[in-house]
């Protein structure tokens, strides 16, 4: 069983090693740390709200099946986002011709002011719609950077590119989104 203390939580690398050694507690901790981030990444990438649960499970299932191949060059979170992005692409191919991206899902924005709520909902919907128009690599780099807070080095390792190229993708995405969303 994974031993964790309040002051010194185990690193993702240690959890992955524990999982490889057969510790299911390590898997539970990985899920607890990253499932929410993967869900937000999937939703922001275009997955429907009602599909997110199943997609997160599938993405994590794929990740646990090949956790041996994660070498720690990319952070575990960016690596998981990459798997989630590939999964979404696969789903899109499977359901070609059908609506996969459901950007009209109702947003549950918890604000007291109805006007503020409506504005926030509209802003979020515009951003999601804008993200769908981006090329996949630009969208993933932007989300890994702006939403997940990853460094360019980690993003580059996860996406199999260079930090410089990741930076360029990010700036292209920002430029495009400014035009679409503002």
């Amino acid at each position, binding site marked *: 069983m994974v031993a964790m203390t309040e002051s010194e939580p185990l690193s993702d690398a240690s959890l992955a090693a524990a999982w490889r050694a057969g510790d*299911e507690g390590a*898997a*539970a901790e990985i*899920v*607890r740390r990253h*499932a*929410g981030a*993967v*869900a*937000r*990444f999937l*939703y*922001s990438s275009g997955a429907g*709200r009602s599909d*997110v*649960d199943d997609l*997160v*499970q599938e993405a*994590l*299932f794929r990740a*646990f*099946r090949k956790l041996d191949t994660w070498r720690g060059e990319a952070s575990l979170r960016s690596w998981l986002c990459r798997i989630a992005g590939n999964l979404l692409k696969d789903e899109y191919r499977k359901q070609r011709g059908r609506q996969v991206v459901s950007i009209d899902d109702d*947003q*549950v*924005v*918890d604000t007291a002011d109805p006007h503020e709520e409506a504005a926030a909902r509209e*802003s*979020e919907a515009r*951003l*999601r719609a804008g993200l769908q128009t981006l090329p996949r690599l630009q969208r993933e780099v*932007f*989300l890994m*950077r*702006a*939403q997940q*807070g*990853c460094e360019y080095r980690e993003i580059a390792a996860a996406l199999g590119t260079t930090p410089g190229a990741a930076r360029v993708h990010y700036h292209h995405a*920002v430029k495009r*989104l*400014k035009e679409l*969303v*503002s």
Partner: protein
Amino acid sequence: MNRCEAVSERMPAVASGRGEWSPAELEHLAGCGDCTAEWELVSAASVLGRTIAVDPRTLTPRLLERVRVARREDRQRRWVARSAQVAGLAIAAVLLLTIVPRRRDVAPIPTSPGVATTEVAGLQLAELDGAAPSELETVLAEFDEPTLPGSSLDGPDVEGLDMSQVERALRSWEES
């Protein structure tokens, strides 16, 4: 790195709550339209989908059960594949042991291309089938003996001859 790039670099950290804007950065943001627009995007992206809820307590058991089942299936697939390999090798070995000896009985492999060993042996040895052991010994002795002493393709050995003997030998060859 100019001021805009420096502010842009810090946006994800500030948006995720891992940092705060300094007064100088705030002042820059207030006066730079590009950076303000980027900051609005980044801060909106950082909270995008925050209402999506995933419950690890229900997700983890389902996930681990799926992984267990998949691993079991992997093991079974590997076992079937390995068994098929072993069975294939066993069949190949049995075929090798039963077919190859039969082929030897039927037709021995020729020793040189285009010449059947049995035919050559049959032609040369047929007339010796009825020979007595002593006759065979004589034949073998003839095979083993060298041809006439001193006779070779290079001619007689002239090493031990003196000049007059050599001249005589040459004259006799010319006459013949």
